[in-house]
Each structure stands twice: as C-alpha cells, then as structure tokens.
C-alpha cells in the first residue's frame, strides 16, 4: 500500500502530462480526421492558458469560469482564422497555421501586461489529475460518437477526396471549420489545465516545437482511430521516464544518450508501424495468419 502511494506520488506529474498531451494530440487529430494538416493548436493552447491564468490571477475568478473562458475564447478565434486559411490545402495550410501560432507567441512576448517572455508565474495549482482525465474522456466520447454518424461519414469523405465530397453535396467548409473549432476548444482547455497544474506559463512553451510534439503524438499513436492520439501521447510521455528508470540499470548516465534512445524508439515505430501504435494488434494478427498459411 505504501509502495503504491510512493509510486503514485513519484509519477503523478507524468500521469497528468499524459492526459494533457493526449488532449493536445486530439486537438491536432480533429482536423487531421478530415484530411487537414492544421498546426494551430499551440497558438490556441497559449490563448487558453493565458486567458485562464489572467482570470484567476488578476481578476480573482473561480477555476470553472476560467476553464470555460479558456475553452470558449480559442473557439471564437478559430472561426475568423479558419474561414480564410481552410481554403488552402496541404503544406500551405500547415505553413499558414504555423504562422498563426507564431503570431500568438510573439504577441505574448511583446505584451508587457503578461510579463513578455518571462511569462506569468505563481499561478495557483487548481488542476487535479481527475479533471484532466475527465476532459480526455469527454473528448474521446464525442469523437467516438462521431464515428458512423452522418458527421463522421462526411468527415471521412472529405478526408478521402474533398472534391468528390463537395459534388455529393457535403458542405466541406462547415465540416472543416467545425473540426478546427473543436480542436481549438480542446487545445485551449489543455492549456488552461496545464497552466494551473505547473504554476507558470511562458510564451516559449507554445512555440513551433510544441505543435510538432503534438503532431508526433498523433502520428505515432495512429490517426486511423480516434483513440490513436491518446495512445501516442501516453507512449511518448512515458518513454523518457521509463528510460530514466532503465538508464542506471544499464549504466547510461543521464544526458544526451537517453534522448538518443528516445529517438531510436520513435524512429522504429514510424518505420515499422506507419499507421501508428494502434495498428500493432492488426499487424501481429496478419503476421500470424501469414505464418500459419506457409506452415
């Protein structure tokens, strides 16, 4: 029992970050599910994190109010952003949305009210791990309900062939915009939860590197299933901690080598499981069948 408590206390932050990263990965997945590579999630997370922190720190608002605002504000920003940028496709959409994230980051860097690059500190810790997982569960429930519904089929059609979907009478803009807005809400909520979990927010925590991380979570987990991004986020958040555990056993000193191993594991997943970790059971089944046929 005591051992269990010690383990929980040691890894509670990792547990929390798995959930936070899962939310962020899902926010990238929402637009990926209709074939759009939008990388605006870091910008939305920053808006959510700052909105919530300003409300609790400077205006003494309660945490639920702050979370609500942090979810709503990115949604409001996503509409005027999405209408023009969702007209462009592929890598150009990615570039435009990265630019949006950078605009948000640089805006915060130059905003004295929020201490510029130094960010907001001494934010009260109000997030509990269960709140994070409740948010993840609700997001997953919503995405699971979409599957097989009219909405879900429309999204799949847009992903496979946008022009064909349009000729079939699917209003592609509405669907794409709705998914961008949903992603913005998830990112904003994750940002607000993280700010009140880790005591501080700074603009550099929401740069380009962060959104690439989110994309990697989604891709490594697998974007063929709605729960793939959660699996990817869990795997990649736990991996550095597992390696931290293993390092002394095999005599690796803490430092760059740990990250090298991290990179190798990541690369092998991408090389051998191009559809992500969630495709592993299917791959194994396939292989077993192939073996039994030859035998």
């Amino acid at each position: 029992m005591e051992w269990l408590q010690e383990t929980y206390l040691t890894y509670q932050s990792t547990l929390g970050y798995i959930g936070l990263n899962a939310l962020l990965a899902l926010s990238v997945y929402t637009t990926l599910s209709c074939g759009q590579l939008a990388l605006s999630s870091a910008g939305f997370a920053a808006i959510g994190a700052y909105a919530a922190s300003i409300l609790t720190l400077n205006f003494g608002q309660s945490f639920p109010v702050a979370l609500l605002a942090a979810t709503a504000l990115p949604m409001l920003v996503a509409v005027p952003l999405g209408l023009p940028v969702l007209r462009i496709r592929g890598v150009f959409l990615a570039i435009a949305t990265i630019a949006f994230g950078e605009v948000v980051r640089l805006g915060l860097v130059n905003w004295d009210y929020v201490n510029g690059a130094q960010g907001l500190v001494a934010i009260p810790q109000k997030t509990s791990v269960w709140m994070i997982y409740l948010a993840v569960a609700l997001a997953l429930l919503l995405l699971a309900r979409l599957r097989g519904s009219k909405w879900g089929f429309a999204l799949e059609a847009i992903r496979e062939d946008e022009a064909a979907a349009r000729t079939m009478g699917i209003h592609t803009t509405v669907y794409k915009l709705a998914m961008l807005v949903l992603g913005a809400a998830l990112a904003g909520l994750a940002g607000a939860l993280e700010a009140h979990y880790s005591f501080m927010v700074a603009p550099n925590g929401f740069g380009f590197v962060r959104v690439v991380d989110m994309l990697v979570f989604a891709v490594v987990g697998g974007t063929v299933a709605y729960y793939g991004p959660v699996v990817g986020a869990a795997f990649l958040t736990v991996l550095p901690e597992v390696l931290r555990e293993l390092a002394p056993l095999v005599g690796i000193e803490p430092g760059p080598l740990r990250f090298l191993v991290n990179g190798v594991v990541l690369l092998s997943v991408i090389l051998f499981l191009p559809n992500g970790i969630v495709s592993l059971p299917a791959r194994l089944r396939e292989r077993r069948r192939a073996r039994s046929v030859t035998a």
Partner: protein
Amino acid sequence: MRFAGRMSLAVIVALAFAAPASAKQTVKIGAALSMTGPAAAYGANQKVGIQAAVEEINKSGALKDVVLEAVIEDDASTKEQGIAVFQRFINKDRVAAIIGPTLSNTAYATNPLAQQAKVPVVAVSNTAPKGITDIGDYIWRVSLTEGQVIPGALKTLQGKLGFKKAGVLYGNDDAFTQAGYTVMKSALADLKIEVVAEQTFAKPDRDYNAQLTSLLALKPDILVVSALIENASGIVAQARQLGWTGPIFGGNGFNNPVLIKNAGPAAEGVYVGTAWNRSSTDEANTKFLASMKARGVDPDQFATQAYVGVLVVAEAIKQAGNKGGRDDIKAGFAKVMSLSTPLGKFSFLPNRDGDHTPAVQVVKDGKFQILQ
C-alpha cells in the same frame, strides 16, 4: 579451548561488520540539471562542479559520519520533465535537499512542489530577479541575480570609462535576456546615463547589422547588450565589423569562454559583470581551480556556482550538528555565515538570496581578466 577460540573469532567478525554499519549516514542531494535541450551546455558544467564538490567533501571528512551522495537527473530544459524529476527526488529518492534546476523558468514550475513537501532547494544558476526565493522559505539561492551584479558592474565601469550615452540591444523573446534588460535599464537610469536608443532581436536571429547600424548612427559611448551566449558572439563580431571600437557591456550570458572562442579578437574590450572572479587568489578559489584542472575541466561560472551549492549544503549539515534531515538542512542554511568559497565569502541575505561580492571582467589578450 577450541570452542572458546571459535567463539572469539565469531565475536571479532561480528564486531568488524557491525562497527562501520552503525556509524555512517548517507545524505542524498538531488541535482536537477538541464543536460539535454537548449540549456545543455550549462547543465554539463554544473554536473562537473557538483561531482567534484561531493567527492572532496567526502574525502575531507569534514562532515564526520555523514557521507554525501549526489543523485543527478536530466530535466531536458523543460518544465514538464523538471516537475517529474522533482517529484522523483521528493518521493522516491527521498533526497535531503535539491540543487537546481538550471533554468529560472523551470524553477517557477518545480520549486512550489519542493516548498509543499518541505524539501530545501538551493538554486545555483537561477538569476531571475523576482519570484524564485519568493516561492517560500525552503527555497534558497547561491547564484547572484542580474539585479545584484549588473548595477554595481555598470557603476564601476562608468567610474573607469566615464561614458554618458548608451545604446541598448537586447533579446526580447527570452525570459533571461528580457529580465537582464529590465535591470540594465533601471541601472542606466540610476547612473543618469542617457539611452540613445533601444533595439531588440530574437533568439533565432543571426544577423544584427540593422539594429547595430541604427544604434551606432546615434553615436553612443558604450553598447549595453543583454543576450544569451549563442547570440552574444555574433553581436560582438558584427559590431566590430561595422567599425565599433568602443566598449561593449554584456549581461551574464556573455560570461562564457565560448564568447572569446567564437568572436576571436573582436571580443577584446567586452566587459562583463560576473558573480565569480576567476583570477581571485583566495585560497578557496586556487584550490578549486587546481582540483578542476586535475579533472581536465576548464570551469565557468556555472560549474563554480554548482560547486558552491554543494559546499553550502555541506556547511548547513555541519551547522545543524552533522544532521542531514530536510529540516536540519533548512535550519542550517540560516546559519551559513561568511563561508569561504571560490566565489568569495558567502552568506545568505534575509530573503534567502545569496550574498557575496561580484566583479567586473574585461576581455584582454584573448582572456577574461578582472578589471582592477
């Protein structure tokens, strides 16, 4: 007879095993250092300083039965892993004190956890003027803040060089350089030095010609720059290429031998405020330099401050009567007075920030030398 012989042998063996086991007490010190990510260069030096100090203290027997053990972990320069490392130190390794983390921004996220768990923390490289030791009474700091180094250094320098107009250049997208700029600005105002213009750059920038040209056109007497080392060398070299021969004053980011290595002769005439007087002939410093040389390491300020961090923890244990509990160490910190360290005589201020005399360095003949 035979039986008695066996008995006495057994007793001797039992005593031999029992005696040392009862005496020694191991005190674990956790060090959360950035050994990967953007701050990796600092973390590597800090690790060397900490290991050297722990070895020397254990060898010297100054703590009698207490043996120090350093547990070093990498925080990857991120707050996410910094938090994970702190929770590990607090709950799993059950360390008596924590040294670090390397970056101030990580400290804002990790130190509240140590404060909650009542584990003393010694910051050895956090230089943000506000909000570190304010976290609580378990948070102590060895590294001088920019606010403790820069104003004094600028004053000394003005006395020597007598400048009246300054051009200011700073990185505005980084917490450290922005904080340094704030300190520089108020220090220049206090000294009644006119600021002809302020220019900014961002961390990924490599070309500073536009900013420097516009600053130099206003004919300042000195360039005051707040930059990280990765930008500092380029700024210095490009200023010299544009024909600037006057003095350049830099913040703590300039305080790195890499500046001289990268900028070469252009670095001559660069002035840097420093917490560590490398050429001090104080015995503690010469001993430290010799021990570093024996390890084949060229120490910088980060290695030195990390080394002193361990010395301060050891002194706190001694002051607490050679007891290494978390609260013993915290109580011991308050009694650290005028401790001889490579940084000079070290004490804590009432707000738990460190206190010792800073110095001004100038690059001369390809070396950092102390401005006399």
